[in-house]
Structures are given as C-alpha cells and as structure tokens.
C-alpha cells in the first residue's frame, strides 16, 4: 500500500509536496471537517434531510481533488462533498442539496462537477463517457469518478471499467474503501485481496494507497491523472480509509460494528498526522490552527446562510426542470396545479 506520511506525522519517504502545499491541504481538510460537523448538527436540528458524513475520509477526497485541473470532470457520490467542494462546487450548493433543493445541483458554468450520484454504481460509467467525449473533442481534460467499496459489486462498475479500458478513455477511478457499505463489511463485499487488484481483470493498472494520507492520495491521483491526460489510459485507485461516523444520519453503526475499531482508526486520523508533520517542520502553530478554524466556520456559516436564503422553490420551477421546453401535457398539468 502506497503511503508517504505515517500516522505519527513522520515521513516514510521523500515528500513530493512542498510545505506550502501541505499547509494548503491541511487547511482544506480542516474546512471540510468543519462542514461535515456542521451538517451533522444541522441535520439533528431538522434543517437538513438525511446526511452522509465523510469524517475520516477528508484526505482521500481533498487529496484527490487537489490533483485535478479546474476544468476536469468529477462524478462522485452523496459522500463526496469535500471532493466536490475542493473541485469547485461550493459549500452553499452542497448544503442546498441536502436541504432538499434541486437548485443545489447546479455548480457554476466553469465547474465540471456533476451533482452527487445517489444511486450506487450508475455514475462511474458517466465518467467514462465524459472522458471519452473529451478525447474525441481533442481536449486533454480527464474525468475522475469517486465511489465506495460497495459500489464495486454493482454490474455498472464492471461495465465502466471495461469500457474505459477498451476505449482507452482518460478516466481515473477512485474507490474510497471506507470499510463498509452501510452495514456490510468490505471483507464480505468481495473475496478479492484488494479492490485495486480488480483492475487486472480489465488489463488496467490498479494501486492501493493509504486513504488517510493526503500526500499519498494527492500523489497517486496526480500520477494517474497525468497518465490519462497524456493518452495513457484509465486506472483504478483504491484509497483505504474508514468511515468514522454512521453511514447516514439514519444509520446506527452500533448494530454492525464494534466502535473500538473506530477508535483505532482515530489514531490514523488524516488531519492529525499532517498537523504533526507540519508542527515538526515548523509549519503549524496553535494560532494558525485557531485562524483556520475561525475562517472555516465563517465560510460554512456564510454558505448555510446563502443556502437557507434561497426563496421557496415553486411549482412552476418543478415543472420547468423536466425539459428545455415544457411539453403540452406538462403545461396542462401546471394549469391544473393552479399555476
């Protein structure tokens, strides 16, 4: 398993990132975790619909997004808020989505990040089509798709990997193996030694990386992205991590896992190891930490305010979203709906 930073913050090997880059990644992870905690709190207050927390997976998501170009495509899941945000999506839109508002699905024009896929499996092949289109158009954009360990059991994973390989599309497959598919452990999901090894069945390279090591993830994703960008084809990256929280706010992990396990993973926390590394390198101070947290909190609070300030969605908007031009039956039904 590829890794660069040990849980205690010591470096296993030459670090291909600068101190400034590491400080940036750390700051991003702090902001992401602030968002995650805020959403959990808001959901308890009934201000959000079900929420799928990503605590513990910040390194996998921030690391991966940091390795992309701003115009690359991203197709992720309900748990990929940090990845999507770092790729340009905007916290306020992610929050709007979780309040149950379709307007949260529309990132800015220049951002090529799809709204999160709620179905498991279906979106990976979309990233193959996106990347394929870019190569047919002659651009050097790539597409990254993020998914979980459970998603690898869906037939669509297989079809996506095979199409990407056969048509040599510039697609990076990022599996965040967080140990569970709701209650179903990775060990039962598939008998293959690793998820990375599944790449061989498609004649593709697969690599396993410490998903709690932001530098390692950033490095392997950048490598995979560069290869794809140069026409070298797709690859599969398995980021081994752990879902610290419940599957969603509707889930009770006590039913299927021993929380001692979560405690062990605390010691491999993706933020802590970077803090220790930075501290040793003189790149961290309590004041700076304070500063980061305040800034993060303010940004998230602003995002919440912005999302909650959206006017009530109207019936007309609901009808209007079906087609570019509303159909006859929809126009009739809109009248019937009293509009």
């Amino acid at each position, binding site marked *: 398993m590829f890794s660069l930073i040990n849980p205690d913050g010591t470096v296993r090997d030459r670090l291909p990132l600068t101190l400034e880059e590491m400080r940036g990644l750390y700051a991003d992870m702090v902001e992401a975790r602030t968002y995650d905690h805020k959403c959990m709190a808001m959901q308890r207050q009934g201000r959000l619909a079900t929420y799928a927390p990503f605590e513990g997976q910040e390194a996998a998501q921030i690391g991966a997004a940091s390795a992309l170009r701003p115009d690359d495509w991203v197709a992720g899941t309900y748990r990929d808020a940090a990845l999507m945000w770092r790729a340009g999506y905007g916290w306020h839109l992610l929050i709007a989505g979780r309040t149950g508002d379709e307007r949260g699905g529309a990132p800015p024009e220049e951002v090529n990040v799809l709204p999160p896929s709620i179905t498991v499996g279906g979106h990976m092949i979309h990233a193959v089509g996106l990347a394929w289109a870019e190569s047919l158009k002659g651009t050097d954009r790539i597409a990254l798709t993020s998914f979980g360990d459970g998603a690898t059991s869906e037939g669509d994973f297989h079809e996506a990997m095979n199409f990407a390989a056969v048509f040599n599309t510039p697609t990076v497959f990022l599996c965040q193996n967080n140990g569970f598919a709701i209650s*179903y452990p990775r060990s039962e999901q598939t008998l293959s030694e690793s998820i990375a090894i599944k790449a061989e069945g498609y004649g593709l390279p697969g690599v396993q990386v410490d998903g709690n090591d932001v530098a390692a993830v950033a490095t392997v994703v950048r490598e995979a992205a560069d290869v794809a960008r140069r026409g070298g084809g797709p690859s599969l990256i398995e980021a081994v991590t752990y879902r610290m929280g419940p599957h969603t706010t509707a889930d009770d992990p006590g039913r299927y896992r021993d929380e001692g396990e979560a405690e062990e993973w605390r010691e491999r926390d993706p933020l802590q190891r970077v803090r220790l590394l930075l501290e040793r390198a003189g790149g961290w101070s309590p004041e700076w930490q304070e500063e980061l947290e305040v800034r993060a909190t303010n940004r998230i609070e602003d995002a919440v305010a912005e999302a909650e300030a959206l006017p009530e969605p109207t019936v007309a908007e609901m009808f209007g979203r079906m087609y570019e031009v509303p159909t006859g039956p929809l126009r009739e039904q809109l009248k019937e709906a009293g509009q």
Partner: protein
Amino acid sequence: MSELTLAQSLNGALATSLESDERVVLLGEDIGRTGGVFRITDGLRDKYGAGRVIDTPVAESGIVGAAFGMAIAGLRPVAEIQFLGFSYPAYDQIINHVARIRNRSNHRFTAPLVIRIPFGGGIGAAEHHSESTEAIYAHIPGVKVVVPSTPADARGLLLASIEDPDPVVFLEPIRLYRAVKEEVSELYYTTEIGPLRVEREGNDITLISWGAMIKEIRAAASILEETGASVEVLDLRTLSPLDHEGILSSAVKTGRVVVAHEAPRTAGLGAEIAAIIHEGALYSLLAPVRRVTGWDTIFPLKRSEAHYLPSVDRIVMAAQEVLEA
C-alpha cells in the same frame, strides 16, 4: 392478537414463514445485521441464522437473479430491494427471466419468489427514494404485484405471496410503515391475491387507490361525507392482476369515480383503471373517471415534495367536481 404497525406485521409474517417453511430464505442489502434500512427484518438473522437471512453485496440484479435461481431449485426466497428507485438494475432479471421461466419452459420450471420493495414518497427523502413506478411492474405478464395498506393485510398478503406458485413483486408503502397500528393475529393466515378490499361502503362516489394514498383517500372520504356525500373507498391491494369485477361493480353502483396515485399521470395505473371502468361501465357513469395523480415530473426533493404529492385537498376538490358533473 396484538397491536402492530405495518412494519411490525411484515416482520411477524416473515418470522412466521421462516418458522413454518424451511424453504424460505431472505436475502438483500443490510437485511441481516441491521434488519434492513426500515428494520422490516429486524431480529430475524439472530433467530434464523445468517444462512437464511442473508446480507448481500450491493447488486440488485444479482440479488434478484440469485433468488430466481434459488426459487427454481425449490426454495422460497424473499428478496428485499432497499427502495423502488434501486429496483431498476434488477428490471431485466424480473421482466426477462423471473416473469418468463414458466412460459419459457412450458411449466417445467417455475419461480415462486417474492421481491419486497419499499415505495412511495412523503418522507422528504433523497433523490430516487420516493418512487412509485408500480405501473412498470404491473405491465409485465408473468409477475403479480401486491401492495398492502393495513397491518392485517400486510401479514395475509405477504404470506399469500410467499405461498404463491408464481413470482410476486411486493410493494410496501414507506409512509405507512409506522403510521398505523391495528390488531393482527399471530396465526398463519393468507389474504387472497387479487380481490380488492372495500374499505368503506358508499353510494354517491367511489375513491380508488392503493398503498400510502389510502390514507389520503380515507381522509378525503371523511371530509366529503361531512358535506353529505356517501363515499365508497376501495383499496386495490393487488395491482396485477387487477380486480375488474370489484372495480366495475363499485363504479356501476356509484357512477362516479376518482382514482388517486402518487406515480406520474401519463401511463400510470390510473389510466388502466379508468380504461377498465369506461370499457365496462360507461353507460352507468355520471361523469368521466377522474385521475388525481403525481405530475409528469420527477419526484422532487424535500422542499418541493408538497408541490408534487396528491393532497387530500386535491382529491376532495376533484371528487366535488365529479359529484357536481
């Protein structure tokens, strides 16, 4: 007898069938350790073992296809799909194999399996979690489609479905899982698949629905009765095969019909029910059959849910127009 919710009643029915028929096995995502996302299989894995209450990988086509093979080999599998919106990866298995093996093999092989699927909206869920696409299953020759709306029917219909020699898509109304309690017998009993249930008798107008919308048409009926109308309420309970006689005899009696469902209107089952009535009872009708349905839009997210779901008000207004016609 004991007071049970629809969810508890389903759990009890599954326990009863695991107890009384060793051919019964349950399989699906998270149905074992957690008892399923709606806890319908709660406690069953501990009681009957991981060999009969089986957690599976995340693969709906695999779940249904494997259950299908098990059924051919003589078991009575009950597969769970977590939400109707996640049943589509299994649609090919259902329409092309589950529904067809009896025909393909001229009765030599059959697939007595049950596919349990929670469906319907009203809980402010995420995208894909509020679907009501029952019509795409009712359109498939070779499967039956059953939808309970009361705890007592839930038990009788589920046991009947597991007993049935043919495959059954068993749709469970999410909104009603814990909405109502009623006395349910612990005994083994079945409720016949096919016949509708006359929930309330009346003479002036018939309100027809199934699943969670029964709650809405019941409420609408009470409001209409305050205005002096005598309202008949029909719970179809089985969407395939439809109870033509039951539907027609009520339509002939009242001459006025409103059918309500959450699914989009176009090509929804309301169209089939209206067509059956117009074909079989046109000359008794005092007004066209009226459909009160979800709109031809995608089921919206939480903030717009009320814009979409057919409300008691919409049903009452439609019924009043039909009564005045």
